[in-house]
């Protein structure tokens, strides 16, 4: 199975090199591409200096547009699966092989690495867990499927997901919305337990100031995804 690791990076100078090095060491044989989302720091120079494989976006697109670039690359280069691994070192590459195995053997369209199956490792703050639980309940209400960690950035998708997301992918806070879109199109979404670490550098895209906007925007996006006609 040909797998592409997509690593979105925005101002990740402190952790991008170690993230990629760790990936090369712990998941050898996997292709990867860093999407430098027009970082203001020297992320691009670091990537060039270390001879890493990357795509440089000339304009900042936000996490959705950056990850979608990776999916477009995966589609163009005929990959069987693509997995998002955040550039801040939160995601452990050791789980990638289990995810790939699950995707292949269970014929799933998406495998999510969830923090909340075994409750090990970094569990995020209380407020965030409440927010995540709310999305889990909302998605269960609307689709009947239980996704314990719908905001997880560690996700692997197969060919169907790549084709779908390369064409249309939410711009900001894309994780819960895209899960719902995949579920609505009849996709099979599975979760496996993973352990995440606290981010090693940079700042989260969701700060407290934005959290109200985040909750409202993602709720609306999920609701609209549910009234969209299939294939739209």
């Amino acid at each position, binding site marked *: 199975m040909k797998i592409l690791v997509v690593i979105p990076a925005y101002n990740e100078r402190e952790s991008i090199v170690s993230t990629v090095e760790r990936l090369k060491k712990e998941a050898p044989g996997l292709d990867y591409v860093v999407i430098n989302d027009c970082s203001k720091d020297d992320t691009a120079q670091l990537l060039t200096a270390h001879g890493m494989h990357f*795509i*440089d976006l*000339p304009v900042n697109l936000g996490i959705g547009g950056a990850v979608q*670039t990776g999916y477009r*690359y995966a589609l163009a280069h005929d990959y069987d699966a693509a997995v998002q691994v955040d550039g801040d070192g939160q995601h452990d590459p050791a789980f990638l092989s289990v995810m790939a195995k699950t995707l292949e053997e269970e014929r799933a369209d998406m495998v999510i690495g969830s923090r909340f199956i075994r409750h090990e490792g970094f569990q995020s703050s209380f407020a965030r867990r409440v927010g995540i639980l709310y999305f889990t309940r909302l998605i269960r209400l609307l689709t009947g499927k239980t996704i314990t960690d719908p905001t997880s950035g560690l996700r692997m998708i197969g060919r169907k997901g790549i084709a779908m997301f390369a064409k249309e992918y939410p711009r900001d806070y894309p994780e819960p919305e895209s899960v719902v879109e995949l579920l609505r199109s009849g996709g099979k979404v599975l979760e496996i337990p993973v352990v995440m670490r606290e981010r090693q550098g940079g700042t989260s895209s969701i700060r407290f100031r934005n959290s109200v906007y985040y909750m409202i925007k993602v709720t609306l996006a999920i609701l609209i995804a549910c009234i969209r006609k299939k294939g739209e």
Partner: protein
Amino acid sequence: MTLRLKIILLLALVLVLILLTLRVRKRQLDLRYTLSWYFLGAVLMVLVIFPKLLTHAARFIGISDSMNMLFFCGFVFSLVIIYTLTGAVSKQADQIRDLTQRMGLLAEELREEKEKNGEKNGAEE
């Protein structure tokens, strides 16, 4: 409406329409997005010249003061214009995103190609 107010409003409207046309002529404004402004100007001009129309329209939808009717019309038009702009911005954001991604992907392809060629040349030497 006094004659003085009528003349002032008409002059102002004509001035705005002239400025608008000049900017379109210099291609600083896209005629496509300017049409709604022309339309707004035309309607306002008719209403200023024939204020009776405004009084009738106001009475028809139950507004007692015809000046309020004018404000109401202006407000509704502004909303329509803002709405079309929201649509235009959304479309352009999509187009910019698509272009940005294409550019990033192309630049990567070019770099890879160069590297490959560099390796070949190195092997030949």
